């Protein structure tokens, strides 16, 4: 099949087979995968490689003492970030956890800015104030970077509220953005997650909850902390449809993401996606990672999302060994460039340590009223005085519905 013919294949989601009534087994939904053409496949592959190589470089720089703090690497979970975020537009918003470098990269934040942030430099995406766990980029719609478990959930909910508010309250047709809220399996045990799902479903907010279930909350195995380990099943209880996807398969994630994004953009409400995945490294670079069995690790390593997607591309005739290697090289150059950029960037000035705490405050100024407004106020005042007079005279008639009018600006009886 020629490439051009391949490109004609719609990139649309393949419809899922009708699910049997009870679905006890995990990974059933693997069969639902997105169809992509060669170009999109290459984009996804590049993005996953970028995530992997960037994180490897991060570890290197951490061990060399160039990067400090708590650094949580994303290795192994790339298919989730790429699969979800590459379905979004630039003006869509994501909100992430402390494992956020790759989410920011997938969303489009230049690798230079992310690396500079890890270096704590002024050129970093959070100006060196946030560090590894607090990547922010308003331009690219990356709203954190939050370090506590599940505290990003209500923030993402707020971003979704804002979009729905602009669309429904302010009648802004262009407000069709979508918010993606990433969280982990550990966060799914936290009450905020359920509170947020409830509220999102109530107000039909355009939000997608993506649970990256990598089975381990530091040293707490998922099955030891959760009575019902299938997280996707917890959505429907709140009116949020839940889908389970193979988080090691970028096309499976993409298929679920497309569906969820379409639903959210249409104003139909939230979706919960549980992506089953695994982190190839410890919780953070400070984690000795002694708890997880070598056999478990190697079983997941065999399903490396990048390697398997590379194989898929070769099978489909989208790529070959040479091209894949070239891609790796290209990404390598990008990552190395980010390091040299970060190295050569200036440190934030110490005298500016207090910068960015407060925005400009409001300075009171006299209110201005047009003649028409003054007249309206006068009308309302007369009405109030008259009412008082009537009341004094013993009139028990309820007041007219003045509270309900927008004009004049009268508030209280």
């Amino acid at each position, binding site marked *: 099949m020629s490439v051009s013919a391949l490109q004609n294949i719609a990139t649309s989601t393949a419809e899922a087979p009708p699910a049997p009534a009870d679905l006890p087994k995990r990974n059933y939904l693997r069969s639902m995968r997105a169809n992509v053409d060669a170009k999109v496949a290459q984009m996804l592959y590049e993005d996953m490689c970028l995530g992997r190589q960037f994180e490897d470089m991060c570890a290197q720089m951490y061990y060399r003492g160039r990067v400090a703090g708590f650094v949580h690497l994303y290795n192994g979970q790339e298919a989730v970030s790429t699969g979800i975020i590459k379905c979004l537009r630039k003006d869509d918003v994501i*909100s992430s956890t402390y494992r956020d470098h790759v989410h920011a990269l997938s969303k489009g934040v230049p690798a230079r800015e992310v690396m500079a942030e890890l270096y704590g430099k002024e050129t970093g995406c959070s100006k060196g104030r946030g560090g590894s766990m607090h990547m922010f980029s308003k331009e690219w719609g990356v709203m954190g970077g939050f370090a506590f478990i599940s505290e990003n959930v209500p923030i993402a909910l707020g971003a979704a509220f804002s979009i729905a508010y602009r669309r*429904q309250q302010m009648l802004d047709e262009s407000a069709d953005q979508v918010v993606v809220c990433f969280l982990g399996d550990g966060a799914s045990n936290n009450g905020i997650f359920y509170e947020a799902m409830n509220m999102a479903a109530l107000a039909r907010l355009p939000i997608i909850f993506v649970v990256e279930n990598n089975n381990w909350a530091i040293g707490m195995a998922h099955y030891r902390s959760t009575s019902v380990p299938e997280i996707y099943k917890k959505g429907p209880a709140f009116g949020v449809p839940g889908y389970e996807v193979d988080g090691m398969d970028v096309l499976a994630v993409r298929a679920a993401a497309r569906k969820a994004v379409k639903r959210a953009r249409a104003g139909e409400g939230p979706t919960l996606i549980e992506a089953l995945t695994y982190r190839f490294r410890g919780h953070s670079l400070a984690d000795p990672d002694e708890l997880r069995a070598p056999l478990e690790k190697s079983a997941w390593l065999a399903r490396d999302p990048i390697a398997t997607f590379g194989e898929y591309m070769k099978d489909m005739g989208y790529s070959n060994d040479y091209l894949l290697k070239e891609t790796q090289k290209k990404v390598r150059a990008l990552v190395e460039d980010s390091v040299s950029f970060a190295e050569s960037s200036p440190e934030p000035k110490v005298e500016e340590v207090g910068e960015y705490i*407060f925005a400009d*405050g409001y300075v009171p100024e006299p209110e201005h009223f047009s003649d028409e407004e003054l007249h309206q106020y006068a009308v309302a005042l007369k009405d109030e005085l008259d009412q008082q007079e009537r009341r004094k005279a013993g009139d028990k008639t309820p007041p007219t519905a003045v509270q309900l009018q927008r004009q004049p600006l009268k508030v209280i009886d």
Partner: protein
Amino acid sequence: MTDLLLLLLVVNAVAVWPWSAEGFVARNVLRRDGRPAVADARRPSAGRASPLYMGSAVLDGDKVNGKSVKDWTVERTMFQALHMATAEEMERDPTVCLIGEDVGHYGGSYKVSKDLHYRFGNFQVMDTPIVENTFTGMAIGAAATGLRPIVEGMNMGFLLLAYNQIANNAGMMRYTSGGQYDIPVVIRGPGGIGKQLGPEHSQRLEAYLNAVPGLKLVACSTPRNARGLLKAAIRDNNPVVFFEHVLLYNLKEEIPYLPYTQAIDKAELVKEGKDLTVLCYSRQRHVAVEAAKRLEKTGLSLEIIDLISLKPLDVEAIKKSISKTHRCIILEESSKAGGVGADILSCVIENCSDTLADVPTRVGAKDIPTPYNAKLEEATVPSVEDVMAQVMWMMTPHMVAKR
């Protein structure tokens, strides 16, 4: 003390409404699909006087009874003043929205948002489930993405459940994002020690939140400043925690009829005096005024500064007053252990030591859970007598460490 309490009136601000508004309240319902219904109760103009009894007020352009509306004052309680401020700001700026428990159909537990959902709809005035941390976080997220939400804590103490969101996100998100996200959120609600509400409903959150960087803490104390300050707080681009006192909601005062704003970072000079400065805020302002009134008979004149802004402190106003009186008492309702008073005290010592004639002292609540029993409760809160005693002690010769 009793006359003061009489003055401050009641606890339960679910006050006596002259006429029931139930007639319209029942009309607006949440649509079955869960979407907020647009306020459908916006009726055509019905503001004309009742035909039964025509009023005699004379209207002429912007003049009522011959006086321009600009010069009119009207009597309002504090909850009405807050209601006015909220409605005016929501009218002025459609991005201002109200989020909280029972702020919509119920009208707020202290009626600060009564009937607003008719005017603005169920989205702009949003009733939330009872999930303080989630709706506070939601407001912060919404603030970061272009709205100006007001969060009402049904009781300020409930916001302890949202402490993480207020501290980590409202306070710090702007800084950690390198100034990219402004958080123009107002978090307000009734706080302070009410009348026999028990320990959990008698929280003074200003003490808890004082340690959080990035927040502005503002306490209103009268209808006049409540309206002006809340409006300014809503227009401010920073997270403002706005303290109202449960016992002040029914306090009445003549306030300007037309909307106005007041600086949220400036202290208010309540009363001028020459012997001693009392630094106070919220309800304690009225305690100080009462103490000053009684002490006047003894020939002592107190200068009373209502701090308004608890963070950042208006150091200039404090300095100015102390350079005149040379003595200072800090009066607070939060407990002396870890309260804001400790901060104010150190601020006074650090900034005014060259003009102080004596070591400043504090009058504050006791470091115990506020008891239910009325007498016990009264014993934990600073009273007029406590303030008077402290003033008398300050004004009598006593041991001061020699230099």
